């Protein structure tokens, strides 16, 4: 009887939190799923049910397919660039710079993560500028050919990857640092006694021991990579005086379909596809790392 009352109390205590969570988190997802099966122009009171036709149309839409391809390249590019460099940087900060400047290094790596995105992207836009940018000035000084960073179909995607990685790096380093600080020192001492070098300890001890952290950081980085929007928008936005090549990404395509083309159901179908991709990739990452850990 007492147990039952306790259980009831626990449910009652949790109910408000769960209700808020359901309203704020679950309802929008369910509503998006529902909208994706309807044709709605944002303005009309009618939302005719169209089944899967939004999804079928999407897979024949070249702008959507371009956006999907670009987004996937950017998300994986950011992850591939960020994870190894963050791990190495965190390792360096943790093992090599136990000086009074350690805090400074951590802060300087983390700052890009907290800097407002728009001014940061504007600064990067200047760096990538074909005529006035310091990057091309450096390349020219080194004897190379200046590049149209923001206009070339491939380089413009690379620019978005660099900008996103620059932003994501600080957070990843911070999480890896926490991981490094929680690694058992006895294992490293034993390795040292066995004659392992610093690099060998990093390669054969730190990397495997940090797998749970790597999983978490890579999932977070990948998800945020799939949600890329502002970086692509600012680097090549509507600025008429000095426009750039618009790198079409999924969120930008969704916004365009919702508020310019007035096709909210269609944009919701894109959102559902994005959700499925992120869920599948996250599941795959978990499975992959679990499998390896099992071995």
């Amino acid at each position: 009887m007492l147990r039952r009352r306790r259980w009831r109390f626990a449910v009652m205590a949790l109910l408000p939190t769960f209700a808020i969570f359901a309203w704020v988190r679950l309802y929008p997802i369910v509503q998006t799923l529902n909208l994706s099966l309807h044709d709605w122009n944002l303005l009309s009171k009618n939302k005719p049910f169209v089944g899967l036709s939004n999804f079928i149309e999407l897979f024949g839409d070249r702008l959507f397919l371009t956006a999907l391809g670009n987004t996937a390249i950017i998300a994986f590019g950011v992850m591939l660039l960020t994870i190894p460099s963050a791990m190495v940087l965190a390792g360096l900060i943790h093992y090599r710079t136990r000086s009074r400047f350690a805090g400074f290094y951590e802060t300087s790596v983390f700052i890009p993560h907290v800097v407002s995105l728009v001014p940061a992207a504007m600064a990067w836009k200047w760096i990538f500028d074909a005529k006035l940018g310091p990057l091309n000035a450096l390349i020219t000084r080194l004897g190379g050919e200046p590049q149209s960073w923001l206009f070339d179909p491939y380089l413009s995607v690379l620019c978005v990857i660099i900008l996103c990685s620059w932003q994501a790096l600080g957070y990843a380093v911070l999480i890896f640092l926490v991981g490094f600080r929680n690694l058992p020192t006895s294992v490293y001492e034993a390795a040292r006694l066995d004659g392992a070098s610093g690099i060998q300890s990093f390669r054969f001890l730190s990397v495997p021991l940090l797998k749970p952290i790597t999983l978490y950081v890579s999932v977070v980085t990948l998800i945020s990579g799939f949600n890329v929007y502002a970086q692509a928008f600012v680097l090549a936005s509507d600025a008429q005086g000095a426009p750039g090549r618009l790198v079409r990404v999924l969120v930008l395509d969704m916004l365009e379909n919702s508020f310019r083309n007035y096709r909210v159901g269609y944009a919701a179908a894109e959102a559902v596809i994005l959700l499925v991709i992120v869920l599948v990739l996250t599941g795959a990452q978990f499975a992959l790392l679990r499998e390896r850990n099992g071995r």
Partner: protein
Amino acid sequence: MHYTRNLRGSLLGAASLMVLALPAAAQEVTVWSGYPELGPFYEHVAEGMNAKYPDLKVNVEPIALREHEKRVALGITSGLEGATVIELPGSTASRYVENDLLPVPPQDVVDFVKDPANFGPFFVDAASNNGQVYGVPLFRGQGALFYNTEMFEAAGLTEPPKTMEEYTEYAEKLTQRDADGNPTVSGWSLRLSGGGQGIAEKFWINMFQYGGNVLEQTADGKWKADYANEAGLKALRQYIDLVQTKKTVTVEMPADAEAFERGQTAMFIRESWVIGDIAAKAPDLKYATAPLPVGSIALPGNLYVAGDADDADIRAAWDFVLATNEPDNLVWLLANVGWLPNRSGVDYSSVTDSVPQFAAFVDYPEGYKFFTLPSIGPIEEVLTRLAAALSEAYADPSLAGDDDKIMAVLQRAEDETNAILEREGLLGE
């Protein structure tokens, strides 16, 4: 007991005094504009209304056009609080009107718009839907050629180009290059990149000079795409020829009004607001304007009122809209901002006489033609998707000199446009 009664009386008295001391409830009107340069104009109009509405507070909120479009879409559908004056082209407003999201104006406003002494039928139609007036015409975007007279003189050119073939010849002569032959000043700045439908609108303007239109109305009153043809081919070929072959302009070169004001391009096609922009940002620039070879786009901007507000505030908003069309304010608009007012019967000569660059916009040759964007729901989607196809084509060097490939690009884009029209039940026979 006696003390309590006294206290209650004192509190009541104090509260009454406070209520009396409060100012009369102020009326409030918000103005949403998609052109930041129009902000001072609306503020000027608001100042002029002080005598009639001493307590009227006008919040002028101009933002960039694409953001404005999103704001309007979200604002109107989720319910606007307070009387809001919204600036929209008729082609965009039609969506809201068809869904009963923009109210019919008071009768005196309708009469003002319908009065032939105030507006020509083109502008009345652009502010109406099925014959019912919903908005008040204010200004229009109309294109003309802007050219740098000093650069023309240096290139030995004495007059503006008159045909599209001459535009290409002039672009070649006007392009300035470095020792390696790379262009440093573009001969003719073209809209080649960036997002949004502007790329398609600019292409349409050029194609119009060759006798083409992106959309044509069919006999059944519907529409069909009509640019995978000779006019479309000539227009796109010219773009690709200038960008990829003659390299009089490149995708990465500074473009548009900013480039013109900084002397980074010799000529470009734009609306009259550039005159006001040059006056503010590059007053020493030596330039002139000229009509386009065949005709121009005329994109009327109208004012509508929406929002959940009491009748007095809605009335004040409509009075604000009418005030924008007062002759003094329209002359101020032309003189200080540069957008062309649509109202007829107003003497603009004080401005047009002192700023000769306006001549190309008001004294165009006989038979000069105009086109506008059709007032159909999917117009933005049609143009945005065409713009995406065009910007890819402009950057594709493999299209240079290959008419078949260029035509294939146009055909693919035209099919996409017709598919959009068909989906919306607007595809004509």
